[in-house]
């Protein structure tokens, strides 16, 4: 089966520092790939390269059979096919929810207003925010803004969605509502590349876990294999840090309580 996305010997530098080293990664149509790794390991940069927000410095990157590192690549077209959602949502603060969502479909894709609006409203309904269509971003909670940002990307009808730590800036009680939306997309068979620190979510939603450290891919395994039996020492260390909280012993009852 040919891959929808294919990184091959892919390199990226920030100045002198190499942030992505010899990346080989294939993602099939409909696959959900979660990229894990410590901060600064290059996982966000990997996503941003796929969207043309960062320029690559070597190797190959193919999308649907086309080489994206060609000079002739029309990134505006690629970005319509590969949607991206950011950590801090980045809704346009001077536009209503509906205008945020419709900017791309109307101005970039030149679609019919009524048709695009119908799709936008259907998507809003799906994420439970149809009643917020005329609200402005500042009137919404972080979780609501992030769900709108997801709809803004979806309304372009992309083939792939990239999620770059989309719950990292949210209050804990809002994480769930955003993850549920992503889970729904995974169930519908959309191709997803997800960078996250939510381990339980990664385990639940991923077809494959990609573990990165210091700009390299160290492991690629199905989630159960990765979480129960990580092969590399680096991945084991990484997972231990996350299980630290869960493994803490319960606090013993204190004397004061006994006195009561």
């Amino acid at each position, binding site marked *: 089966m040919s891959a929808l996305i294919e990184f091959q010997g892919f390199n990226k530098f920030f100045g002198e520092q190499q942030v992505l080293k010899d990346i080989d990664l294939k993602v099939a149509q409909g696959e959900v790939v979660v990229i894990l790794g410590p901060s600064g390991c290059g996982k966000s940069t990997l996503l941003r390269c796929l*969207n*043309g*927000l960062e320029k690559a410095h070597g190797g190959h990157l193919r999308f649907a059979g086309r080489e994206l590192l060609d000079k002739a690549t029309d*990134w*505006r*077209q690629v*970005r*319509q096919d590969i*949607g*991206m959602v*950011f950590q*801090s949502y*980045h*809704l*346009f*603060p*001077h536009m209503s929810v509906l205008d945020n969502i419709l*900017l*791309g479909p109307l*101005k*970039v*894709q030149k679609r019919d207003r009524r048709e695009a609006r119908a799709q936008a409203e259907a998507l809003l309904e799906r994420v439970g925010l149809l009643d917020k269509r005329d609200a402005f971003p500042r009137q919404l909670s972080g979780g609501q803004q992030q769900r709108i*940002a997801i709809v*803004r*990307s979806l309304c*372009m009808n992309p083939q792939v969605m990239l999620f770059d730590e989309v719950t990292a800036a949210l209050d804990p009680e809002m994480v769930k509502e955003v993850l549920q939306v992503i889970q729904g997309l995974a169930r519908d068979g959309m191709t997803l590349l997800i960078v996250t620190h939510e381990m339980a979510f990664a385990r639940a939603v991923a077809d494959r876990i990609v573990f990165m450290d210091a700009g390299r891919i160290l492991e690629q395994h199905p989630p159960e294999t990765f979480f129960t039996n990580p092969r590399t020492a680096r991945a084991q260390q990484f997972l231990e840090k996350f299980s630290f909280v869960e493994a803490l012993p319960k606090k013993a009852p204190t004397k004061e309580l006994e006195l009561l």
Partner: protein
Amino acid sequence: MASSGLELLWVSLPQLGKGAAQTLSISLLSIAFSTLGGVLYGVLRTLDHKWLNAVLRLYLELFRAIPVLVWLYLLFFGFPIFFGISIPSFTCAVLVLSLWGASEVGEVVRGALHSLPRGQREAGLSIGLSDPQLYGYVLLPQALKRMTPPTINVYTRIIKTSSLAVLIGVVDVIKVGQQIIERTYESVLIYGALFLFFFFICYPLSAASRVLERRWTQA
């Protein structure tokens, strides 16, 4: 005395009005060109194009380092000598004030665009917007609030600086005033009138700028 003073003002009014019209048209044209040029300059500066940036920096520094009066002389007296092109004094004044104003407005626009969160640009790009669309729909509308108050302040400076045009022979409101003083020796009265003229044009502008600044920083 008082009545004769008022009488003099009344009689001079048509003449002063003509001068005022010159001052105002130089100012308004310069403001319009400064705004257009300044927005263009500000946008181009944020594109981070190496050579373009170098050229624009040079332009900015030239208009920062060299007084407007020197630019006026250079164009009005220098161009005929060096290039054999003579530029009418009115055109010359508008040209210099516009170029100077555009560099000032441009820096304001650049700063306002620069202060927007980086994510706004990336979010715009990620839905496939072209650069003109990105600036037109996303970045400039957001920068507008930040840049309007300081831009209005540049406008008042353009209006005040337009008085230098006297020195290359534009018969503006100040020149007309001087001519009347030469005839009548009523310098206090005429300069008082000029004082009020500039004050009542510039003060509302700076007041508006202050009000907008206060209102928009609260929101």
